[in-house]
Structures are given as structure tokens and as C-alpha cells.
């Protein structure tokens, strides 16, 4: 699959094209992905060693149906049990997993399902990640919203009823600086009750500043916990540094953030090992920082602009569902987010079992909530440039549609359960 992804983007400048080819074809031309780059803070932490040793020794094929049944019959769920629940042997017990997961979800969350909307502030990126639509070699329309545009977008989103927002940027230190993101958080505080961030990994001081600006949750996807595979996919830029990315959540918690989110982009590495590592990353950090609120996301690869060949062929819906259920049984208290990468049918089903948070009214493009959702003032905005999307979404329902579907399923949509204290 990796070779298939490495398609040369059209319309690249010669210089860019040469660099791209060199990075792809000559591994020696890439930097050491385990080496921190200048300015990246290193912290002392044992969490990474624990996660990696568990992941490395995990052999999914070694688990039997008996292991799965034994895990299902227990009140708690050990790491061994989690390994069984993520194994191929558990695929014949999906309904049993679903029943157990549903009970755990209801006990912890009742029938509440939390709603939020992501807002992409900018799609500039300084990294070359071969599967991502924002990668620096990809010829797409780039944009960075100015503060006036940010406020306009936020007003539109806020008017739909959304009270929790997730701010995202491409990973550009320069085009979307900490200062810029901080200002965006301050604007967001006027319109929303809760602000999460999904930006490039930052140092503790930066996270602390963003926390003061109003952000309280930081999500960083590790993409894959297999650093060897990671190296072959993240060929250039600061994102290439695997350990700095791994330690993001811990730096964020030390900086005073209330909660942290974790995720693997399923389809890059062995999804069972990645799922195990993601759950354990969250598990060990919560043990170390007991007050931390923990959430997990379960994205699969999606098609991107200029590279429609990327398919999420490695992880089926049934397997994705298995992962969500295993997460829920192992970490009953964790929030689980399922994004619009998945279909309305899948999301309607998974919220009945284990997911507790879903996005609604989503656009992954830059500055196009106005274009897509607002009916008024079209003329005033028609001259505005919008930036291309990071990936294609599957579930295009509006907030109201999602809300109504949840209600119809007997679930309680919750727009906010948060206070700044």
C-alpha cells in the first residue's frame, strides 16, 4: 500500500518534485525520525517504553476463542483481556462484545451522546506525509483564515446550536503559529462553551499559553505506533519526529490541560497492534495523571485530493466496531469519538454501543462553513478564497439531522457538559 500512495503530485515545481522523489526513493536522504529536532522539548517519561513493549510482544494470532470468552465473562478487563478482545478470535463474538460494551457505556454515560463541530483554521503544512491531503507537496488551495474570517465561521457554527468546537490546523509552525491559534481560542471563547485543539505537537509552555487562551483539550493522533512504518510515511518535516509526537498528551497535561485525546489512523500499520498501543497510551497516562479526562478517536484512512487511490482497505467496518467495543470494555470511562469519516449508518449504530461523541455539520475545508451552510450574506462572502479539504467526509448530515437521528434512537444529544472553572 505504501508504494501505491507514493504517487507524484501533479503540478509540482521542479525543485519540490525533485525533493519529493529523493525523499521517497532514498531513505538515507531522510532525517532520523527518533531524533528530536531543535526546539522540541524532551520530558522524562516511562510511558512510551511501557506502551511499546506491550505492543511489540502482542501477537494477535496467539489468542483463542477461550481467551475471548474469558475476557467477556470478567467484571474488569486486564491488558491480557484487551489483547484477546482485539484479536482475530474475537471477530466471532462481535454481538457479545457489543452487549458488554453497551452496558459499560450506559453505566458511565447514560444515554448521552456529545456533539461538536471541527473548524479548520488553516491548511498550510510543513510536513510531507504521503497519505495526507494537506502535505506540503500536494497542490491544493492553501488558506489561513484571518481573525475576521475565523469570527465569521464561528458565528455561523454557533448559530447552528453547537457549543463545543474543535480547532484544527495543518502542521505549520509559521502559517498557524501558537500566537495565531491562541488568538483563535480567545475568539472561540466568545461563542463556545468548550474548545478542543487538534494542532501540531507543542511544548509545555505553548500548551500552557493555549490553555490560558481557553483551550482545555488537546488531541494528537499518533497515526501509527509502529515507528518503523511511521518513518516510511512521514518523510519530511517536524511531524517526522515520532517520540516528540508520542509525548504530546503528557506535555499537554503537565501544562494544565483538562483532557487529552488519542488516535491511530487505522490502515497505516497493523491495526490490532495500533489499537492496543492507543488504548495503553491512554491507560498509562490516566494512571499517571488520574484527573486527566481521556478520549479516543478511531479514524480510518480516507481518500484525499490528488490521490484517490488511497483506500481504507485494511480495516473493515466490523473491525472498526470491534476496536471501539474493545476500547469501551477496557476503558469504560473514556470518551470515544467517531468522526464524519464514517457513514451515517455506521455512526448511528456505533453510538448505541460505545461511541459517546460525534461531530456534526462538518466541513474539513478551510473557511467554507459560510459557503456550505449559511444562506444569508452569500454575496459578501463570494469573493473569499476557501482552502481545499484535508479528506473527503462520508457523513454529511447537518447538526439538526444528527440531533434528530440520536433522538429517534432514544439517545440524548448533549451540546455542552462543560464549565470553565
Amino acid at each position, binding site marked *: 500500500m505504501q508504494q501505491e500512495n507514493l504517487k507524484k503530485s501533479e503540478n509540482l515545481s521542479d525543485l519540490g518534485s525533485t525533493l519529493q522523489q529523493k525523499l521517497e526513493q532514498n531513505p538515507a536522504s531522510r532525517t532520523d525520525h527518533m531524533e528530536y529536532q531543535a526546539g522540541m522539548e524532551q520530558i522524562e517519561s516511562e510511558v512510551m517504553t511501557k506502551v511499546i513493549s506491550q505492543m511489540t510482544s502482542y501477537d494477535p494470532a496467539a489468542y483463542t476463542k477461550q481467551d475471548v470468552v474469558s475476557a467477556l465473562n470478567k467484571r474488569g478487563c486486564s491488558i491480557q483481556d484487551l489483547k484477546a478482545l482485539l484479536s482475530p478470535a474475537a471477530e466471532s463474538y462481535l454481538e457479545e462484545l457489543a452487549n458488554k460494551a453497551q452496558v459499560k457505556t450506559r453505566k458511565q454515560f447514560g444515554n448521552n451522546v456529545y456533539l461538536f463541530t471541527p473548524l479548520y483554521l488553516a491548511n498550510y503544512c510543513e510536513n510531507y506525509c504521503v497519505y495526507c491531503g494537506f502535505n506540503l507537496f500536494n497542490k491544493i488551495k492553501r488558506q489561513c483564515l484571518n481573525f475576521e474570517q475565523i469570527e465569521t465561521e464561528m458565528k455561523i457554527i454557533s448559530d447552528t446550536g453547537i457549543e463545543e468546537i474543535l480547532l484544527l490546523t495543518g502542521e505549520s509552525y509559521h502559517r498557524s503559529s501558537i500566537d495565531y491559534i491562541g488568538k483563535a481560542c480567545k475568539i472561540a471563547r466568545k461563542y463556545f462553551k468548550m474548545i478542543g485543539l487538534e494542532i501540531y505537537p507543542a511544548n509545555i509552555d505553548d500548551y500552557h499559553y493555549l490553555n490560558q487562551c481557553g483551550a482545555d483539550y488537546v488531541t494528537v493522533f499518533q497515526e501509527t505506533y509502529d515507528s518503523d512504518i511511521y518513518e516510511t510515511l512521514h518523510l519530511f518535516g517536524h511531524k517526522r519526529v515520532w517520540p516528540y509526537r508520542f509525548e504530546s498528551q503528557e506535555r499537554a497535561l503537565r501544562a494544565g490541560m483538562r483532557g487529552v485525546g488519542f488516535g491511530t489512523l487505522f490502515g497505516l500499520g497493523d491495526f490490532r497492534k495500533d489499537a492496543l498501543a492507543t488504548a495503553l497510551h491512554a491507560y498509562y497516562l490516566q494512571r499517571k495523571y488520574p484527573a486527566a479526562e481521556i478520549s479516543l478517536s478511531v479514524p480510518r484512512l480516507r481518500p484525499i485530493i490528488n490521490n484517490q487511490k488511497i483506500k481504507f482497505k485494511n480495516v473493515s467496518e466490523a473491525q472498526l466496531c470491534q476496536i471501539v467495543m474493545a476500547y469501551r470494555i477496557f476503558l469504560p470511562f473514556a470518551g470515544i469519538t467517531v468522526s464524519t469519516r464514517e457513514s451515517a449508518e455506521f455512526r448511528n449504530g456505533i453510538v448505541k454501543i460505545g461511541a459517546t461523541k460525534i461531530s456534526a455539520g462538518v466541513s474539513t475545508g478551510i473557511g467554507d462553513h459560510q459557503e456550505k451552510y449559511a444562506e444569508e450574506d452569500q454575496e459578501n462572502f463570494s469573493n473569499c478564497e476557501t482552502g481545499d479539504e484535508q479528506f473527503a467526509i462520508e457523513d454529511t448530515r447537518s447538526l439538526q439531522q444528527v440531533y434528530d437521528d440520536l433522538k429517534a434512537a432514544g439517545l*440524548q444529544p448533549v451540546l455542552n457538559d462543560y464549565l470553565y*472553572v
Partner: protein
Amino acid sequence: MIHKSTTNDPLVIAGHEFNSRFILGSGKYSLELIDSAINYAGAEMITLAVRRANTTKSENILEFIPQGVTLLPNTSGARNAEEAVRIAKLARELGCGNFVKIEIMQDSKYLLPENNETIKATEILAKEGFIVMPYMYPDLNVARHLVNAGAACIMPLGAPIGSNRGLSTADFIQILVDEIELPIIVDAGIGAPSQACEAMEMGVDAIMANTALATAGDIPLMASAFRKAIEAGREAYLSGLGRVLARGAEASDPLTGFLRD
């Protein structure tokens, strides 16, 4: 306004009298069910997470709570006394009245209460005129500190919140019932009406339940079942439970039969 009960066995919290000894949670089931749950439960007090009421645009939980029911805002989300105090004050601003249930947690996994911070928050809020109902891990020393800090009742957990495991801490709750003059309200872990009944038989003054209702197939029906179980347990306690006889009959010749005067 001081609540006055119509029974001769009211639950009295800081001078307010309640007929019902069942406090309902509200945060884990559909808002439309709150009204009927209250009716079937016969409840006169319902808890409400202030953070859930912190919504402006749609379906504010406050709008679903019927008039005449006493609101018990809780401070969930607070990690220390300072945050709990801020949330309590916000609840007052939102018009939730003077009752407040202190919930302070520093553990996102088990949601166990942090007793030390709870004592601090109780003292501050009691001085500011709140009717403070602290959720706590059942520890006699802590309960005494809470009494001294001005608590209006003591709310020990029966088992971890949301666990439906019943009275895992029964022995320690019994000590609180025996030693503390304030009402003892079992707050978390009660998963079935039988467990609520058992707690009431022990002499607990009231029961608070949320997950047990939320996870029931028919929430109003379960509310009704709890109401009856709590009333049954209370009556059993008031009537004085009979002796539990050992297996077989008691010896007919008393062991002390040899005594002559």
C-alpha cells in the same frame, strides 16, 4: 422558602422538610423522561450538574425540571475546593437556589470523591449560606470534619459511581448512621431497589440514585420501584427489625439458668 412536609416522618435537611426520601439524578437519561421519573419516584429533590445547565441554545436541562421540585445542583467537574466553590456560586447565579451537592474528583476513572478538598469546600460554602450536601468516601473522621465544617447532611457512596454494585461500603455507612447526627444519604452505587431498601433498613435517611434508573428498560417504572423499596426500608427501620435467629431454634434451657438471684 422553607419546605414543610405533610408526613409525620419527614426528611429534614437544614430545616427544610421533605416527604420523599428519594433524591433523583437527572444527567444520564433523556430530558423528556425527567418529569415522569419525578412523578413515579415521588421525588421532591433532583440533582443537576451545573455544567450540564451551562448551555444556552437548546434543551437546557433546567427547563425540563418541573416547578416545585427542589434543585440540588452538583459541582461535578470540580477537581478541588476552589473550583467547587466557583461552580456552586454559578449555580446560585443560575437560580438554582441555596442547596449544593459538593462533588470533587481527582480521578477520571473511578470518580471517587476527594475527601480533603470536600471538607474545605464545605466550610467555605456553609459560611456563605449554602446548604451543603457533601458527597464523600465513607470515613467517620471525615464525616465529623464535615459536620464541623457546616455540612447539612453527609452523602457517603455505597459503591463506585455508576457501578450499580450496591452497598459495598455497608459496614462503614453503618458507622456513620450510628455516630453522625446529620442525615445520612447514600449517594452512589445503588443499582437496584432491593439495595436501596437494605440501606434504608440500616437507618440511612435517604437514597440518591441515577445510573440505576438510567440503565433501566423502563425508567419511570424503575423510579416507582425505588420509591416503594425506599418506603418499605424506612418503615422496616422505624418498626424495629426483629432478631435474626441462628440456624435452628434457640436452646430451651437458658445458659444462665443456674443463677439463683
